[in-house]
Each structure stands twice: as C-alpha cells, then as structure tokens.
C-alpha cells in the first residue's frame, strides 16, 4: 500500500473536498470515495517516483527533528529553497519525510 502522505497537499486536499461534495449530493458512496483516494495514493507515488526529474536544494537552520515509525519530521527556520531558475525564502518550514524505498519494504512496514 502506498503512503497516504500526499493526501494533505494542495492536489490531495482539492480531491478530498471534491469527493466530499459528491458524497454530500449522494452522487457517490463513501466507499467509492475511499477507493478513489487509495488510487490517488498509488498514482501520486508512482508519478513522483517516475515522472519527476527536477531537483531543488534547500538550506536552513534546524529547529527540531523527530524520527518515529520510520518517518522523519523536521522544522527548519530561515530556509532558502533554490532551484536553478529561482529562489524562495521562508521563515519556517515543516518537512515530513517517509522512506523512499521499494514497494516490498513498504508492504512490510504496513503489516
């Protein structure tokens, strides 16, 4: 099973809101909405793994870190996100990172 990490992104949230609307108007069942979200998880994971090529560098100072259940959570301050083209500066960023290994290890983790 793929990480449900990407449901709380702009894309994922838009999808969830749309699904909620459809459920409200009785056009789909909640079970179907859940299946849609699971398919979204698979799709976004494979898309990011296979179709994304660009690279972003970032640098900041570490405020806190956490590692539990194989998930890293960082809070950085005064961060500069640098891509070849442009630069973005932020005061605070929270990074949640899951292990980027193959499907087999993911299955083991889920059990």
């Amino acid at each position, binding site marked *: 099973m793929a990480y449900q990490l990407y449901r709380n992104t702009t894309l994922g949230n838009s999808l969830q809101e749309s699904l909620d609307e459809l459920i409200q108007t009785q056009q789909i069942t909640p079970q179907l909405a859940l299946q849609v979200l699971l398919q979204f998880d698979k799709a976004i994971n494979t898309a990011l793994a296979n179709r994304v090529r660009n690279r972003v560098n970032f640098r900041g100072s570490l405020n*806190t*870190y*956490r*590692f*539990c*259940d*194989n998930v890293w959570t960082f809070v950085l301050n005064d961060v500069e996100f640098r891509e070849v083209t442009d630069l973005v500066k932020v005061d605070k960023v929270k990074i949640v990172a899951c292990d980027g290994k193959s499907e087999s290890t993911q299955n083991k983790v889920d059990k």
Partner: protein
Amino acid sequence: MDESALERYFDDSIAGDSSFLLGEELGPESLDPAHSQQDSALQAVKAGSGAELGDELDLSFLPDDLGPQEEPDRHDDTAGGPAEALNVSGDSGVFTDFISQDSTAANSQQGGALLTHSTSPFCPMTPMTPMTPMTPVMERSGIIPQLQNIVSTVNLSCPLDLKFIALQARNAEYNPKRFAAVIMRIREPRTTALIFSSGKMVCTGAKSEEQSRLAARKYARVVQKLGFPAHFLEFKIQNMVASCDICFPIRLEGLVLKHQQFCSYEPELFPGLIYRMVKPRIVLLIFVSGKVVLTGAKERAEIYEAFENIYPILRGFKKQ
C-alpha cells in the same frame, strides 16, 4: 568535590608531594575564610606576579566548574559570567595557598623559588614534613588535561512508553528495529541521552561533571513533563575523557620497549600507543605529536593523577 580535587592537584604541583599531605590540612581551613577576605588583595598580588606565575601554571586552562556548587539551574543560566568569576576564584585559591603557606611557614625562599622556577631544591615547609620520594619540582608539568566527554547514567525509576516520548518530545529519534531506546538531544549543555523503556538513561557529551548532572536533570524534566512520574535516582558518572598537549614529540617505540607490560603499540593498526596505567586505572592514548588522551576515569582527580604520573615518563622519551 571538584574544587578539592583541583586544589590538591595544585598543592601537589606547586609544592611537591610533601606538601600534598600538608595541603590537605591547610586546604579546607585556609581557603574558605581566605576566599572572602582576600579576593581584592589577591587581585593585586595576581597582577603583580601574574607574569611570573603565568609562565609555569597556565591558569587560563582552569576548568569552568570550580567554586561553590549552587543550584544546577543557576549554574547553567549564568554559565558565562560565573565561569570567569570561578576562574578568578580558582586563581585566588592558588594564591591563598601561597599566602597561607608564607604566613604559616614563614619561608619566603620557598615562594621565591617557586615564582622564579629556579633549579634550587625545594625546601619543605616545616622540619617535621616527611620527605617522601617524589618526582622533583622541575618535572611538574603545568599542563592541565581538559575534559572532553563525560558519560553518566541515572535511573528515572518508572517504566516509559518510548513511542509516546518519541512522538511528543522534540529532538528525539526512535527506531526500535535498530535500537531499543529513544535518542534525545538538548542544546544546552550540548548532550545526547539514551532513554530506555525501563526508565534508565545514559547521558553523554557533557564537558564537566556538573554539566552532565544538569543535562541529565533536563532530560528527566522533559520526561516528567510528558506525564511520567520520573525521579532522579543513582546519578553516577561512568566515564570521563580528557585530552591535553605536552608540546613535544615522543619516541613511542622507546616507551613501549621500556614499559611493555603497560603499553600496546601497533602503528599499522592505530597510530597511538595505548598505555594502561594500573594506579589509577586509566587508559592513555599517547601520540607521536605529544597529544595525550586519558580515559576510563570515574573522578576528575584520577585524570590529573594519571597525567602527573605519565608526564615525567614522557619527558624521558622526548624526541630530540
């Protein structure tokens, strides 16, 4: 505890072994009243003869943990200020010895001999002082090993939910597949703690005994704030590591030939000579450059004693 160890060390290094015995008697009596009374006078004295004494005893290396051991929190909050103040009081402790020795022994020659670091033999303070065989005053190193790492353990004496701690506390790592403890870090004092589900904790990385205890208390407070009934039982320093530079190169091969029952030296494996001193039980890593690492101590005094034992030996193997 730290202060008495350092005072004894200074007594020993200033006046040789004989006054080590005398210093023990003088120490507690003369230092405490003298501290408060003679601080200002001592500053003047220090300014006057600071240059001469500074050549022999590099007092700028004084450990920062001298002086009255007050509340650990207070000690921590004002680390910068009192560190210098404590250095000063440490200095004045040395001078107090001078002045008290001068007044009690009325042997100004001794003071003069020490200040100018002459080669005249050291005179005992009183005729009744036993003359035990000792390393001569010229071999006194004037170098103080600096503590680099302290490892301590403490028992919080309550079972802990490590996953809960890892999820709630900041700066924590928990990977039970790899290691069955939460690894937590704090910035001041900069230390790392291993917290186990039994409630036992290991604290590493502090540079002094008091900092180690303070850090351990901070970790205990974090655990307590998360809702566990944490206590602070059996805090014990398990290991102390110190290092220093004796400022001359050493003939390690010669040393291993002469002291082979204590030394092990495999330059193809590790460039340092491993000297296992029997009394005190300290392991020293001795390098060609003259850098020495001392480890295995439970007390600061053991480090100082081991270094004073090894220094004359190393002087004998100086590379010309």
